[in-house]
């Protein structure tokens, strides 16, 4: 019983993180939300009796994908609707 309620809470949390990641204008927050999706997804994989996939998702989705997105944001712009030609000078520091 409590297992199923935990399952439902995790699914709702994952959906909320996905919607936040798509509609957030600050790209850094959106990337952190994708990391949250991967973290919750690895717990769901563990509850679906697939520990191999859970290990892979926890290592790749949480650590490596997030760090590569963050390096890209540091090298480009941080806000979604920032498109003036001189944005390189006032680039947001990492």
């Amino acid at each position: 019983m409590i297992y199923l309620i935990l399952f439902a809470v995790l699914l709702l949390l994952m959906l909320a993180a996905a919607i936040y990641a798509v509609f957030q204008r600050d790209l850094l927050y959106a990337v952190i939300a994708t990391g949250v999706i991967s973290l919750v997804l690895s717990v769901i994989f563990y509850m679906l009796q697939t520990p191999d996939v859970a290990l892979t998702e926890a290592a790749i989705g949480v650590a490596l994908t997030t760090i590569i997105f963050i390096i890209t944001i540091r090298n480009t712009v941080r806000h979604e609707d920032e498109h003036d030609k001189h944005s390189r000078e006032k680039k947001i520091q990492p």
Partner: protein
Amino acid sequence: MDSLYKMIEYGIYGAAILLILVGLYGALTKKSLIKIVIGLSIVDAGIHLLLVSIGYLKGGTAPIFSPGYEDMADKMVDPIPQALVLTAIVIGFAVTAVALSLVIRLYRHHDTLQIDDIKNLKW
């Protein structure tokens, strides 16, 4: 109890399909290139959840014959989608890395990330 189980079992397919749809919506309507890559990675996550949940067996155990579980072969969940998803996650990371390096290269050349402003085809 039974109806709750029913709700969860449709809920997991529903959550996976909604993840795919939300990711596709982001990839189709947003203007920023990084947002498009984020949307594609959300689609990845949804497809992995969908594939793994196809192979689930009610009351099953993980497909590992550790001591004490040697004769439970008919109660194990399907290992083939797991092997598929295991390789798909690693490939998905490689695809994301290549896409983000292309994003960095485009930003160096055009000084912008908006796909509406990147119009000229020549470099």
